[in-house]
């Protein structure tokens, strides 16, 4: 006995509209999207919104707690750190690093991962095996460790950290693309397209890619979360952003010793990471549900 669903409501929508409709109905996903957009806006407009220069040290307001504490200082909304720098501004600028890097990493991993995965899925044979084995090896080393080692080799800097994380996130995209390509290659529309003269790159981009975009979108969103967490972890370990760069992870690293005297220097950056990653994950879940044709709408 199948469940009854008012299918006539959906019958008029195109697949794309259907996805959007389902997503809109998901309140938590929508909230997450709004939060992310706000964060992005904050990051982009940081120079305009920030109350102070994030690098400037105000030596007579060291370790000021945030509002509405008794010893808080006017103008320093979220307090200051041990060098008198404004937390709010540093956090805001930190958003720029995290968000921008997150996007960059995902784009890089996505694009290269899809390319490699497509080659593996379409060429099969030895190429496929070699690629798969390589990806397995990369996945055998725990993510952070691999990133740490890569950074150790290249030298600690934010750029190298970003590169390391991109490499770490690569295998997932390769695997998903390869699996999706393989299952699509047997479909009729591919055969039809091939008879039409399409092959290689054209076949992939025009015919196959649009049909495998759903799992890639979901993976991209979830990788965004991983990217942010990994960059922060590397920053925390001193292998990513270097002081005085106000990247959230490295903020946590430098304020670790202040944990007893100035807890807000520890709680706030971590909270920022949490909110961003949480929003990204909720959105990713929502997208997954919206893109899955089996999930009931109402």
């Amino acid at each position, binding site marked *: 006995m199948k469940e009854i669903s008012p299918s006539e409501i959906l019958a008029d929508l195109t697949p794309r509209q259907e996805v959007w409709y389902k997503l809109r109905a998901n309140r938590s996903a929508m909230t997450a999207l709004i939060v992310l957009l706000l964060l992005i806006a904050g990051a982009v407009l940081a120079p305009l919104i920030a109350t102070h220069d994030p690098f400037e040290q105000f030596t007579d307001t060291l370790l000021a707690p945030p509002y509405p504490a008794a010893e808080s200082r006017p103008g320093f909304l979220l307090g200051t750190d041990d060098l008198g720098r404004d937390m709010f501004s540093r956090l805001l600028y930190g958003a720029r690093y995290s968000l921008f890097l997150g996007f960059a990493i995902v784009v890089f991993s996505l694009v290269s991962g899809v390319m490699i995965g497509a080659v593996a899925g379409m060429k099969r044979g030895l190429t496929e095996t070699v690629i798969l*084995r*390589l990806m*397995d*090896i990369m*996945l*055998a*080393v*725990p*993510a*952070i*460790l691999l990133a*740490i*080692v890569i950074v*150790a*080799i*290249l*030298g600690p800097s934010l750029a190298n950290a970003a590169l390391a994380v991109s490499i770490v996130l690569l295998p997932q995209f390769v695997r998903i693309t390869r699996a999706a390509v393989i299952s699509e290659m047997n479909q009729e529309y591919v055969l039809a397209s091939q008879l039409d003269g399409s092959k290689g790159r054209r076949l992939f981009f025009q015919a196959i890619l649009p049909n495998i975009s759903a799992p890639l979108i979901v993976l991209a969103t979830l990788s965004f*979360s991983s990217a942010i*967490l990994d960059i*922060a*972890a590397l920053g*925390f*370990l*001193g*292998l990513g952003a270097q002081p005085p760069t106000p990247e959230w*992870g490295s903020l*946590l690293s430098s304020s*670790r010793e202040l*944990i*007893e005297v100035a*807890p807000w220097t*520890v*709680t706030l*950056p*971590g909270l920022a*990471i*949490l909110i961003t*990653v*949480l929003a*990204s*994950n*909720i959105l990713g*879940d929502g997208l997954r549900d919206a893109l899955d044709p089996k999930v009931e709408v109402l």
Partner: protein
Amino acid sequence: MLQLLLRRLLLVVPGFLGVTALTFFLIRLAPGDPILLLAGERGVSAERYAELQHQFGFDQPLLIQFTDYLWQVLNGNLGTSVVTQTPVLEEFGKLFPATLELAVIAMIFATIIGIPAGVLAAVKRNTVIDHSITAVSLVGYSMPIFWWALLLILLFSVNLGWMPVAGRINFIYDIDRVTGFMLIDTLLAGDKDAFFDALHHLVLPAIVLATIPLAVITRMTRSSMLEVLKQDYIRTARAKGLSEFSVIFKHALRNALIPVITVIGLQTSILLTGAILTEIIFSWPGIGKWILEAVYRRDYPVVQGGVLLIAGLVILVNTTVDLLYVVINPVLRRR
């Protein structure tokens, strides 16, 4: 089935080879002269340099170097730490039990809480209970665990003074090392106070380390249960007049756990990642902290050997899980 098992075992070989190759090339990619890095010496004379070159085989063609390296690895020689001058394998052996103890406790914790939570969320779908459990697990794996560790320390060690901050056991206890597992060794020494102290030290790091696996297991169990509960055979079980308890815990859970068990196994990689961060914050003397400090100190033999060992471990566990999966799932057996 035997065929399937053998095939899966065979796949370990190229994986292992690959990892060895990876670590082999790592050292050659590092900035600076690899010979000097491996020897840990600086400012050597030309003579000494030639000696080292021969010692490390750098005067041979690359392929010979690799096979030599491989041979050495298989013989248990993974180099020597430039900092402590002890063999890498030996140091790993000394420090591994600490990480293992922490990981096992964390995993037990994550499973004991995660699976029932997932079942509860699935059975009480779309109620407040479900939403709360889902929300908590979502936060669980969205959190930077190094921050979570600091928060817990702030609350329980600094503010409340309930928990110790660092190490495995209070230094006043002098316990003989038998197995390397503090919980076992303290019991073997007959020191009850020491045992509880060791347990005390385990609490916070284990909670931190368990957080992500807990969240993942909860989610996985929930979604797996939901899928299973929709199946026809659940309807049959109810039609037979079985109690709801029997339907959920006997018929549904047995099926729902199958994918969850693989997830549990695959969490090893996550655990090792988490261990690195956890150990450094809690000064837990395990391999995570060891390898991280080696990176800071440019102790390349340790980095190289450590990565090889850890990756080898992950491959081992993943393979075991794969094999276990075939055994558990009757559908995959004889066809």
